[in-house]
């Protein structure tokens, strides 16, 4: 992601002769500017205008009175949020879920890529890689339907357990403890194949001479993996890791929203679902937006910390 962004930095060095005025320049290139307008306009309206809507966090907002007509309450909504135990629970859950997802999905993708890299039979590689990409391509709603059919109280796993092994059914989807792990492993299921593609691409760029040299030195396949392949993809791994840190308070809203229910709020209520309930069931838009703003601020702080740390370490920033 950051490489794609860096790219335009490099490509924008040759400018027209600066002597013509801005207006002349736009006039001469009017077609190009017109071509960019729909995209630029849609970003301004749907990505930047909502930022102004964040002022709702400082209002006792009523949809009927609008932003200008609502009463200014300063930081009262933030005080409300910080005094709300459910806010802290949601913040904690967001951190725990996304951290565990990172800890499991990230290495899983690396391992999957390493395994696929060892397969020499092309058709086998294609079949397995396709199957690992499929979860990435379906809606969370569909993923939810699958996991319910398999892990629900009357789902496949429990019916096998109760009828064949006489065990008690496990409430994977309504018991807070197993549910957290369902979320984490479902994330691995959905994304490991996608990230493995990135690592496989990085592996394809490793100089084959390195493997030949290792073989001459008598290195086994395993030693080659550890000493050639892993160092070869370490840059990609670090980049993905750095980007992920910026999303540590975003625990996967679409997934949780599909999968969760009242009985698992204890471990699965995250900041977005909490925000949504504040808005929908309590009509407390000011408080909901304040929680969203706090989440955005944490996220932005994490991104900036990663960006400047990475820069200091000489890796180039995220943007």
């Amino acid at each position, binding site marked *: 992601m950051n490489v794609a962004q860096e790219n335009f930095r490099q490509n924008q060095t040759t400018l027209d002769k600066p002597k013509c005025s801005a207006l002349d320049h736009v006039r001469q290139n009017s077609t190009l500017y017109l071509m960019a307008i729909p995209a630029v306009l*849609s970003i301004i309206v749907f990505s930047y205008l909502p930022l102004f809507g964040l002022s709702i966090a400082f209002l006792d907002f009523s949809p009927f009175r609008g932003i200008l007509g609502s009463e200014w309450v300063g930081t009262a909504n933030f005080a409300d949020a910080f005094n709300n135990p459910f806010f802290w629970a949601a913040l904690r859950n967001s951190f725990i879920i996304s951290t565990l997802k990172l800890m499991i999905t990230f290495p899983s993708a690396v391992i999957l890529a390493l395994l696929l890299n060892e397969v020499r039979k092309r058709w086998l590689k294609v079949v397995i890689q396709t199957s690992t990409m499929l979860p990435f*391509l379906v809606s969370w709603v569909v993923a939810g339907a699958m996991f319910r*059919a398999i892990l629900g109280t009357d789902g496949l796993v429990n019916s096998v357990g109760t009828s064949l092994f006489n065990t008690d059914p496990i409430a994977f989807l309504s018991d807070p403890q197993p549910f957290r792990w369902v979320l984490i492993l479902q994330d691995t299921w959905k994304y490991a194949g996608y990230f493995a593609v990135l690592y496989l691409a990085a592996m394809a760029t490793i100089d084959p001479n390195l493997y030949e040299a290792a073989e001459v030195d008598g290195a086994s396949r395993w030693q080659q993996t550890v000493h050639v392949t892993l160092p070869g993809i370490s840059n990609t791994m670090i980049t993905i890791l750095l980007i992920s840190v910026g999303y540590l308070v975003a625990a996967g809203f679409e997934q949780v929203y599909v999968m969760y229910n009242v009985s698992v709020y204890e471990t699965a209520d995250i900041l977005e679902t909490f925000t949504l309930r504040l808005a929908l069931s309590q009509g407390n838009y000011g408080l909901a937006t304040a929680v969203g703003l706090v989440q955005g601020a944490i996220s932005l702080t994490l991104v900036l910390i990663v960006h400047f740390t990475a820069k200091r370490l000489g890796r180039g920033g995220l943007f």
Partner: protein
Amino acid sequence: MTNITLKPHAIFGLTSGQLLIRLALLVIFALCAYPFFYILSLAVMPYENFISSPVHFGPNGFTLEYFQQIFGSANLQRAFTISVFKTIMGTGLSVVTTVMAGWALSRPGLKYGRLLSALFIVPLYVGGGLIPYFLVIRATGMLNTFWALIIPSMVWPFNFLIARAYFANFPQEIVEAAKVDGASNLMIFKDIVWPTSTPIIATLAVLYGVGHWNDYFWPSFLVQPDLYPITVVLQNLISGNVMASRLGVSGFQSVSPQSFIAAVAAVLIIPVLVAYPLFQRYVVKGILVGSLKG
């Protein structure tokens, strides 16, 4: 005997290490693919067979009854049609606007190209959150119209950056030569750039297409039930919020929910299964363009 020293524990011509790798990949394959097989099994298995025996690993019997129910219901038919239109129109619109902007803003001589491109970076990291976003869409007057399903998410910042990175490497000599021949900027784009940019167009089409087809959260808030795409209908069926009356499926209560839900999920899965092999190389390439290009 000598062979054994060369290949210790060779089974089926594979070393033990290779065998372990194959086994691990077999398990991964099963974990990824089996949920698809299982839900499709439920969708085609008669419900009587489903409840008569406690455990099923695959289809027991075959019926298309649930698919007939789906396409016999005016409301589910409409939801499906809306999903198809949203995907085709939304993807077309998104791809055209993204490619145009990616091309235009990557032109070396364009003074404000970099500034305008920078606009697309901030939204990658910072957003206004659910409520301000909703209020903006409401203010545009698109609420409860078909446009609410395709316009607000028309351009994804990330996809724009992919397109821009791709076009930044477009050979400038070709553009210059066309200009010498008197081609306008519009002609260059229409007759040279668009026809030769199949890789990025296909990549964007896949990324946007999958996004539109799978989209469920915002549609459930931005439009009334008569404009729900089928993902939202599935979500409502699942969440127990079965809108039997609203859907107006005749005799819905007698429909077996598990099989019916599985069939609705299958309607969402099958197009992906059919389309993915056709687009596979572009999907993989798209991921690569997004991460490595430039």
